């Protein structure tokens, strides 16, 4: 029996050491500092190639001292994985993050390293207003690579002309007329894919609500001064209800996803597509005649907001692990300073990505990109899911879907959100 005990103990030890063996190999014995960067650059998109090329160049220039390793995880799983790993305190050295409310929990969990020591690198280059998307309580946690405008309207010029609209409608009433005219001609007015329930909120409500309430509404409501039951906010939600009742969307909009709806638009089956600046690339690639595609800002809704504004947020930020120190920290800083340089922004602009710095544009750049880029100059309105708490985002996402199928009224959703807003602060 004694033998058995020894054996059991041995097995147990073996097992435990096997479990604990996952720790990083210390890079101390070699001179190369290795840094791992997590991201969601899995798709074959031009901007991801730009990112990867710049990292390759950095590795080349720092051969023998620093090596950056890229690990890509598909987008839909990325954030869940990041949060789960963060909960287990097993984050890599560097990782892609999203701005606003989405980095808040990571900051509160103290897993991010502030970049204030190297912030002057970008002083005067990137506007304060965009940098602050990645800042919490005066500390900067990432540098934006691009601006993600979330509310643009793409349209087929010829289809609109056939419906009697040479120019894109400037007001909501005109837009409704356009929708009716298109329906009369049996053309799907707007291609929408809301299965994943975020587009109606991120693309539609972010800007529509801003037109009605102004940009101060969201922060002040979240801090307890305003209320979601505000008449203007309810009116914004009502727009979604009206559009659904007008049959403005393709019939299957609640059962197809966002990318599928873009195919519907590209094929010319639908006249319009409301999406963010992320759609520029796929649309340029997907449609036959680029010159036939126009891009317009959301119309005016006669509310209190500034009609020049468009909802948008910084994107493409890479944050550092709070546990970095010494050589690794230095290397990571060096990497960020190199990565967010002119080369990146020029490369991105060439791939039709809206960037936060001024870059020269030549004639080879497509018209819709130039126009979209111009809209950012009117100022950015907050994006709802980058500002709301996760609970509220979930609630408005689901609520908007319910509104489209008549399961809920705008007023009910507003009441529900306000109730959660008050409870959440307790």
């Amino acid at each position, binding site marked *: 029996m004694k033998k058995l005990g020894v054996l059991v103990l041995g097995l147990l030890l073996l097992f435990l050491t096997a479990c604990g063996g996952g720790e990083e190999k210390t890079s101390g014995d070699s001179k190369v500092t290795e840094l791992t960067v997590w991201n969601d650059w899995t798709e074959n998109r031009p901007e991801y190639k730009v990112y990867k090329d710049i990292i390759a160049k950095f590795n080349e220039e720092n051969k023998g001292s620093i090596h950056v390793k890229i690990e890509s995880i598909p987008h839909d799983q990325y954030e869940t994985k990041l949060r789960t790993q963060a*909960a287990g305190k097993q984050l890599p050295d560097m990782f892609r993050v999203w701005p606003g409310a989405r980095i808040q929990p990571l900051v509160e969990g103290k897993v991010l390293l502030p970049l204030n020591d190297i912030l002057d690198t970008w002083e005067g280059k990137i506007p304060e207003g965009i940098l602050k998307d990645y800042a919490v309580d005066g500390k900067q946690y990432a540098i934006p690579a691009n601006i993600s405008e979330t509310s643009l309207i793409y349209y087929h010029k010829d289809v609109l002309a056939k419906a009697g609209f040479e120019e894109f409608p400037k007001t909501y009433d005109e837009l409704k007329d356009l929708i009716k005219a298109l329906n009369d001609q049996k053309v799907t007015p707007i291609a929408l894919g809301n299965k994943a329930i975020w587009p109606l909120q991120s693309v539609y409500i972010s800007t529509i609500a801003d037109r009605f309430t102004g940009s101060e509404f969201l922060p002040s409501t979240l801090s307890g001064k305003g209320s979601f039951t505000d008449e203007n906010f309810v009116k914004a939600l009502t727009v979604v209800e009206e559009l659904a009742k007008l049959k403005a969307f393709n019939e299957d909009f609640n059962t197809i996803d966002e990318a599928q709806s873009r195919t519907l638009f590209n094929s010319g089956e639908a006249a319009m597509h409301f999406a963010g600046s992320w759609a520029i690339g796929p649309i340029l690639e997907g449609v036959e005649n680029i010159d036939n595609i126009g891009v317009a800002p959301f119309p005016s809704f006669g509310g209190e907001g500034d009609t020049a504004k468009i909802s948008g947020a910084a994107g493409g930020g890479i944050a550092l692990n709070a546990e970095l120190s010494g050589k690794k920290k230095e290397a990571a800083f060096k990497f960020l300073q190199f990565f967010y340089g002119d080369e990146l922004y020029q490369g991105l602009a060439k791939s039709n990505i809206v960037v936060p710095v001024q870059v020269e544009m030549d004639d080879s750049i497509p018209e819709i990109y130039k126009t979209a880029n111009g809209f950012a100059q009117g100022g950015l309105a907050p994006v709802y899911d980058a500002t709301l708490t996760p609970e509220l985002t979930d609630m408005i996402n689901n609520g908007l*879907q*319910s509104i489209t199928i008549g399961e809920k009224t705008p007023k009910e959703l507003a009441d529900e959100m306000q109730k959660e807003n008050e409870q959440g602060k307790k």
Partner: protein
Amino acid sequence: MQLTGKSKAALIIGLLPAFLIYTVFAIYPIIQSFYYSFMEWDGFSEMEFIGLQNFENLFQDPLFWNSVGNNIFVVIASVFGQIPIALFIALLLNRKIKGLKIFRTIGFLPVVLSTVVISLTWSLIYNTKDGMINEILRAVGLDFLAQNWLGDTKWSMVAVCITVIWQFVGLYLIIFLAALQNIPEEVMEAAKMDGASEWVTTWKITIPMIWDTIIVAIILCISGSLRTFDLIYVMTHGGPSHSTDVMALYMFNETFSNLQYGYGSAISVFIFFFSLILIGIVKKVLGQKFI
């Protein structure tokens, strides 16, 4: 079987690795989620002990009860869909017919397919605009029967359940076929000599003889349906308007999208006991001998 001291030791050593792995990867996490379920925790910050607050919130959460209701619907649809259909086909196939192997393979095929593939394919079939079902209905002039299968709260749950049934019929079909082939030939022969009709033979002999297998299949079916997640996650995301939300999906969303690890653990604990009790009841009810 008698075990001498020596072979007992060998037995323990043999089982130990499996037992250890099972403890670390199955039992320990279950205990851990019991622990988390008493905490307020977003996954990053300090945990805070809040006693039974999570469960109190859970029992007052209408969306949670909605997901429980939907889940029971899936369980009922699976048990009364999968088992009878599988049994019926198995009885048909359990005779010397040509091409038995082909039919068996076809029946089993959906079980081998990846759930994501199944979900995406069925989403296309159900599509309201150009899906197969609506196209056929329209082609034969039954336009009024065409529905927005996945986009309408009236139909979404039914549509999802049909897919669930389709996916798993094959699994139970194989289980039943195996059981049927184990029925001794003599018993059947004796029945025939006594002049029992096919109908009587099936009800009085075949089914009672595989009753234990049927019970196992029902239990597998219930526990499988209680865990159902992937298919619905891909097909509808629980939508529209929570009409196809099930417990596991609700738990996943609360935990990982809303960052409420404590609350999510409380839901897991609830699912754990709910399943245990349900299966206990089923075993009690069906445990009695047939006839």
